[in-house]
């Protein structure tokens, strides 16, 4: 394939990297002006449009000797990741204007998204590892970008746990490579499908290490220890970016590794890793929800809630035995709706804490009387996180639990029962927050102003939450198409 055609396929990632360089240069030349934010937005928009054109125009297929594959799965995530990041940039422009290292912030954000785009496209262990580390390194700096003790501490904790996770992941990769003799994911899948009983134990050993390594990115129990600390210590815009984009990329990698790389359904070890993810799912839900119950800091509540939500999503991975693509498409659909929901919640919290200077839940008392729109959007997002109709969170939960029940396996039905009980527990802290905002009286009734950019994104997020709650068909169709690309043709 010609260089030009390869560049066409790699467009979004290349654009994002290029944009990162341009933003740095512009920052150098223009100093503290707002031009960097604008350039970042333009880059993200161009990358998203490019991805949409690729979905429609068919610039798809394996490139660079099969190390990278552009298919409907990677394009789904390319669009999701760029859209989410653009929303974060718009929604937090007011915060960014006060950051000393604004150019670096935007530049690192673009590097991190660009690497995530490469990550969801990688079809080879080496590409996957390099993309994963590039995005992680950028995220470590982002977490510590503001010059205060808490931010540095969040960055250090994130980095140390991330480095250990990377080593564990690599150890698993080494064994996969050692057994299969290749680093290409389809090649490994070929090997796994024909592996005899003697290789089952070493394969299990390898994928346990791999699952532990990527579990860190997905933020599932027991690899979650960094989550509440980083969400609280890192600036909220970074927290919202990590909780949505980084988690989505983590799940994309898991799907790619376990469906394409370990052969998906019907291999000698499918049942083993499905069970492993089932245990992760149950433990994450229980731990996340119980942890969130006792928190009084809203950022920590959101941190624990995102651990619990990761548990919900992992149910879809455990449901690998379900017919066709219903398991992975549930994961994709859930991630799509979760992106809108969690972004809405995080940006609303960011808008409020910018004004109040406090993240305690008590300071949210009577928010409805002080900032009606923000309070309504936040309530809607919290309802969606709980999984109440008519929000998108409801459809996503029903879809993903349904995929588990469809497998007809008893332990998965039990897992769904655990998930339903957990939904009830989570309703307690989500709805308590809503009640505090709407029913309680504010100590100080002065109105809180939400900046224009944040208002726009909040409205957009709540519109998406309602739209996909009432009419989920288009997104479900896209998710199913994307998931179909994972399965061997």
């Amino acid at each position: 394939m010609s260089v030009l055609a390869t560049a066409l396929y790699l467009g979004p990632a290349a654009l994002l990297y290029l944009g990162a360089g341009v933003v740095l240069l512009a920052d150098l030349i223009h100093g503290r002006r707002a031009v960097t934010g604008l350039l970042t937005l333009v880059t993200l928009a161009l990358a998203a449009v490019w991805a949409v054109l690729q979905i429609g125009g068919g610039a798809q297929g394996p490139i660079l000797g099969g190390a990278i594959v552009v298919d409907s799965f990677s394009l789904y995530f390319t669009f999701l990741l760029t859209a989410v990041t653009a929303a974060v940039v718009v929604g937090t422009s007011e915060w960014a204007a006060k950051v000393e290292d604004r150019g670096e912030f935007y530049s690192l954000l673009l590097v991190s998204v660009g690497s995530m785009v490469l990550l969801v496209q990688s079809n080879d262990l080496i590409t996957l590892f390099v993309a994963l580390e590039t995005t992680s390194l950028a995220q470590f700096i982002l977490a510590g970008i503001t010059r205060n003790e808490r931010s540095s501490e969040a960055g250090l904790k994130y980095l140390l746990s991330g480095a250990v996770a990377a080593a564990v992941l690599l150890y698993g990769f080494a064994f996969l490579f050692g057994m299969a003799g290749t680093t290409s994911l389809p090649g490994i899948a070929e090997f796994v499908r024909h592996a005899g009983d003697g290789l089952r134990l070493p394969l299990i050993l390898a994928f346990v290490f791999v699952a532990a390594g990527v579990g860190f990115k997905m933020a599932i129990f027991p690899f979650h220890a960094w989550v509440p600390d980083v969400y609280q210590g890192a600036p909220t815009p970074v927290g919202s970016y990590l909780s949505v984009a980084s988690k989505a990329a983590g799940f994309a990698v898991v799907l790619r590794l376990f469906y394409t790389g370990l052969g998906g359904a019907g291999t000698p070890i499918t049942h083993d890793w499905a069970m492993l993810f089932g245990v992760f799912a149950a433990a994450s839900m229980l731990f996340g929800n119980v942890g969130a119950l006792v928190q009084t800091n809203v950022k920590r509540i959101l941190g624990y809630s995102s651990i619990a939500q990761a548990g919900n999503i992992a149910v879809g991975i455990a449901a690998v035995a379900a017919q066709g693509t219903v398991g992975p498409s549930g994961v994709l659909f859930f991630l799509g709706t979760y992106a809108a929901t969690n972004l809405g919640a995080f940006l609303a919290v960011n808008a409020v804490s910018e004004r109040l200077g406090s993240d305690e839940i008590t300071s949210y008392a009577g928010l409805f009387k002080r900032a009606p729109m923000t309070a309504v959007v936040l309530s809607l997002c919290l309802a969606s996180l709980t999984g109440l109709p008519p929000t998108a969170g409801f459809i996503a939960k029903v879809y993903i639990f349904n995929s588990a029940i469809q497998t007809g396996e008893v332990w998965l039905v039990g897992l769904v029962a655990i998930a339903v009980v957990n939904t009830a527990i989570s309703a307690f802290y989500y709805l308590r927050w809503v009640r505090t905002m709407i029913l309680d009286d504010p100590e100080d009734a002065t109105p809180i102003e939400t900046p224009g950019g944040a208002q726009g994104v909040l409205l957009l997020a709540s519109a998406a939450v309602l739209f996909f709650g009432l009419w989920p068909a288009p997104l479900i169709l896209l998710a199913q198409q994307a998931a179909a690309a994972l399965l061997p043709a």
Partner: protein
Amino acid sequence: MIPLQNFLVLSALLFGIGFYGVLARRSAILILISVEIMLAAVAINFIAFATYRDPKAFSGLVFALFVIAVAAAEVGLALGIVLRLFRERRTANVDEASSLKW
């Protein structure tokens, strides 16, 4: 020729020692060194597998090179953050970096 198992045992031992160090050490610098030991174990694994399984395919050796490069980048970044934390707090111990608690 030395059997492959010897390399795998060496690598497993190193990995275990590194992991123990991560859990037991308090200083961020020592934790970093422990992570480096874990990554060295991984690199040994890759090189051993590459040599014994398929001497003509280079992907294992390339992987080991990437592991080394990324590890170096990680250390550079980590030292930067540790240095900044040290300036603010005069300590590099992670358990004293605990303004964030649940």
